[in-house]
């Protein structure tokens, strides 16, 4: 799905060489309730945001949070109904990495959330030239599965999901 375009971005020149850098939010403070064995903690927006904020950008040594690609206000979760919706904002409207970034977010959520969740990952409306096409690819289960069979793509996604050293 994105094989061709991703290759160009990785090897060649950066599309957006000097992005604005945003501050990282600190670790979520641990509350007394969270330390209490008995009290259940529901899955909330911040928890989902913490899952995806540290994903590495495919072309900068920065996280999606630092590039403001993901923001907590664009994360919506409903624990009871088992739904998650994440909007992400590519740094520039013609970013060829958009699909790859979306795929990384999607894979991170698949690996980190209970199976009961239905996940919707899409571009913040009006922020990308091929918004519709990218959203369609990300929503298509089979295409996502096929993308992860492609070892080159899987490699890039894994790099985005590896812990920064």
């Amino acid at each position, binding site marked *: 799905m994105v094989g061709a375009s991703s290759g160009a971005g990785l090897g060649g020149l950066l599309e957006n060489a000097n992005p604005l850098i945003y501050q990282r939010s600190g670790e979520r403070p641990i509350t007394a309730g969270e330390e209490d*064995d008995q009290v259940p903690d529901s*899955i909330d927006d911040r928890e989902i945001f913490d899952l995806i904020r540290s994903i590495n950008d495919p072309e900068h040594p920065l996280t999606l949070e630092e590039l403001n690609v993901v923001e907590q206000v664009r994360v919506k979760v409903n624990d009871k109904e088992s739904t998650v919706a994440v909007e992400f904002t590519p740094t520039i409207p013609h970013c060829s990495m958009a699909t790859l970034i979306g795929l990384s977010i999607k894979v991170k959520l698949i690996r*980190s959330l*209970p199976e009961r969740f239905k996940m919707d990952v899409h571009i913040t409306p009006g922020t990308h030239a091929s918004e519709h096409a990218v959203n369609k690819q990300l929503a298509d289960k089979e295409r996502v599965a096929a993308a992860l069979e492609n070892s080159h793509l899987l*490699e890039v996604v894994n*790099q985005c*999901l590896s812990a920064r050293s």
Partner: protein
Amino acid sequence: MAAAAEEALAPAGALGGLVRDFVAGHQDGPAAEVAADVKSGRCTVLQVVEALGSCLENPEPRTRGRGIQLLSQVLLQCHPLLLEKEVVHLTLFYENQLKDHHLVIPSVLQGLRALSMSDVLPPGLAVSVLKAIFQEVHVQSLTQMDRHTVYSIITNFMRTREEGPFVEELFEVTSCYFPVDFTPPPNDPHGIQREDLILSLRAVLASTPRFAEFLLPLLLEKVDSEMLSAKLDSLQTLNACCAVYGQKELKDYLPSLWTSIRREVFQTSSERVEAEGLAALHSLSACLSRSVLEADAEDLLDSFLSSILEDCRHHLCEPDMKLVWPSAKLLQAAAGASARACDRVTSTVIPLLLEQFNRHSQSSQRRTILEMLLGFLKLQQKWGNEDKDEIPLSSFKTPLCSLVSLALADPSTQLQLVGIRALTVLGAQPGLLSTQDLELAIDHLYRLSFLEEESQSCSLAAMEASGTLATLYPTVFISHLVPRLAEELHTGDTELASGEGPSYQARRLRCLQALSAVSTHASIVRETLPMLLQYLRHVHRGKNANSNEVIAVCRSLHLVAGQCQQEPESCWYFHQTAVPCLLALAVQASMPDKDLPNPGKLLLEEEVLAAMVSVISTASTHLSPELAAQSVALVVPLFLDGDVSFLSENSFPSKFLPFQNSSSEQKRLVALLMAFVCSLPKNVEIPQLDRLMQELLTLSCHHDRLFSCTAAAKCFAGLLNKHPAGQQLDEFLQKAMEKVETGLSPGPYRSQAFTLLLWVTKALVLRYHPLSSCLTERLMGLLSDAELGPAAADGFSLLMADCPDVLHRAGHAEIRIMFRQRFFTDSVPALVQGFHAAPQNVKPNYLKGLSHVLNSLPKPVLLPELPTLLSLLLEALSCTDSVVQLSTLSCLQPLLLDAPQVMSLHIDTLVTKFLNLSCSPSMAVRIAALQCIHALTRLPTPVLLPYKMQVIRALAKPLDDKKRLVRREAVTARGAWFLLGSPGS
């Protein structure tokens, strides 16, 4: 004659042997022997040179190198003995050797380093040595070790000598490494770290003002570069330079330096750069403040500060307040360097900030301004008191006081908090505040101390400020605050009958806190302590008394006792006043009085007694030995003979004889005896000790309630721990062991005897008493006891823990620092052995005992021991006790990271057990198990791959755990397992 000649020859002969050994062999031992001979005067350096003779001309460079090496090593040890003439000859010799083969050079440099340390080296020779080094040797291509030697030679010369014509050459050869960019190679035998090089290079660069004209432009260039490390290194080097530079060196560069530092702080990219920039500015200002002016010179400090003020002041006044903090930090860094700088800056900035405060009306903006102002006030406090006629800040006093009043009256807690801090700083300036100012301040503090629950931080801060200011102005606090608190305590109380609302109780508790907080001066304690004691008497007799309130009074007393400790007179006053009163109240409560209303027994409740124990203990630890002896002569007879004469109220309906056939209420008070006698300094003699110890032993295994027995056992152990070694101690121990053994035999006192054994063991383990291993063994034996086994296992936790009331450092107990490590080494092998030998049903007791010991030690200490415990730890994973599970997991986790090869052998067990434990009912166990599953990914991938799908599938469950902290670990672990063997990881 012949004998003398022989004597002179003999050492030369021996010397020749040593030299031959060294040059031919590969052992360095002979060099030390030769050096020792030179030091002791048995031979001279000249003789060493002569003995080396031929080998210095040997055609083989290795042999020559070895010869020079020997001489250099001798010189390194003996350079203080050298005469000027010898130094000159040796220096010329070494300079000549610089032309030799490159294999020889390292040893030649060592020799020159030795000579550079000599105090008698003639001035011209330093120049000649440096010239020779730079001519003959290409320093940049030497190994790190040898470059380091060259720098040492230069640094040594710098310290003492003029290096005249070589400044620029020297600068070039050293500065080309700046900033140091070096990563130590793996397995570097020299162990040189990047930081070492940075520091030694900095030492050279900043060693002389003569480098200034070359160095400052270089530093400026590097600060302006993009590299973070270069910025940091340059700012730190600039900082170091300021220690040796003066006005002259800095003059031409000040504007550029200020521009660069300002830029780094304003557009801060990293906190470290900001901090180093501020530190460099501080040093620049300090350097300019220090310089002695020539008559016609301009005062650079003044113009430098003017330009800083010029660039920063308008930021302080801008309505959006964007750059206020960086500006304030820059100004404070410059102002903090000297009294002169402080005056110059604050006289401009304080009026400006006062004006800004009044111009802004929002609490948040006012808070920012007051916080900045506070920083400048603190600087005034630091520098203000230096020989001035005028009291610093006095010209701003009125506006400052009204500003602080506004802040304290503001509804915003944040602004109040800063206001309280500002008030404390103003109060600390001697002579600044008048009595009226202080009374007004006290009104504010009083009001803030009683604020509602949600602004608790503010009331705590207000009380703390009262305490700080009260040490400085006790009389104002005694006249203005203490009576109001007394009244408040009383008022709340008269309402008792009509309304026992929670608000009254809360106010009374706050009042008790405020009373203890303000008791920071001896004269105040004399007012507040009687009040608190009176209130305690009153409360425990009241109809509606409850233990919470009694405990609250005790807490306040405890705080006051702590505040009295440092001053002997206050300490004695507190002890003498509070201890007899508390004992009297407790004795009264223990009387079998039928008329006594039930609440009178409040003081005998366990929690209340514990609170009283901490008051008595804190009031006794700091007594001088004489006064302690005076007090112990009263307290011990009270408990042994019922001598109540010294108690404040002493007419009781019946005798107080807790150790005799008395009621169980009286026996409970042994806890108070413990609080007193176990807190005394070691050298205080305790009267009737034999009898007391005997009584304590008897009570410890009495049929009474466990509380009294435990108190007696603890008291016995506390005294035992401090008693000097000798016959008497041995007798106590023997009696204790007889008591324990009798008690442990089947019968009604097994539990009491076990408690006694535990406390006695602890007393001995802490002081490394030889008998402690024997007692520990006895304790371990009980692990397989059907009845006492679980208690014995938990006993190990008590042995390792710090106790709050007895056998603690504050009470002067004999505690060796490494006792936990030692106990671990001594007892773990036996525990392991016991575990293997024990029948299945008691094995968990051994594991739990072991777990308590392992938990008490820091992991790095344990790490080397863990592999030997591995098989046991693996078995412990199947134990059902969650304490055991948790400690086992926390031991295995570092092992997985540290010894992946060994752990690989057990992969099957580890995966299965960890996955099982990730579903444990205990959250802590689930978290630890998931952390171990994550740590498993450090094992070699081929070992893990067969388990990959199983683990990923199993971890889907904890992803939906009800606890967020568990889910977080599951996500991390599962993410890491997904990456195993996958491309891109």
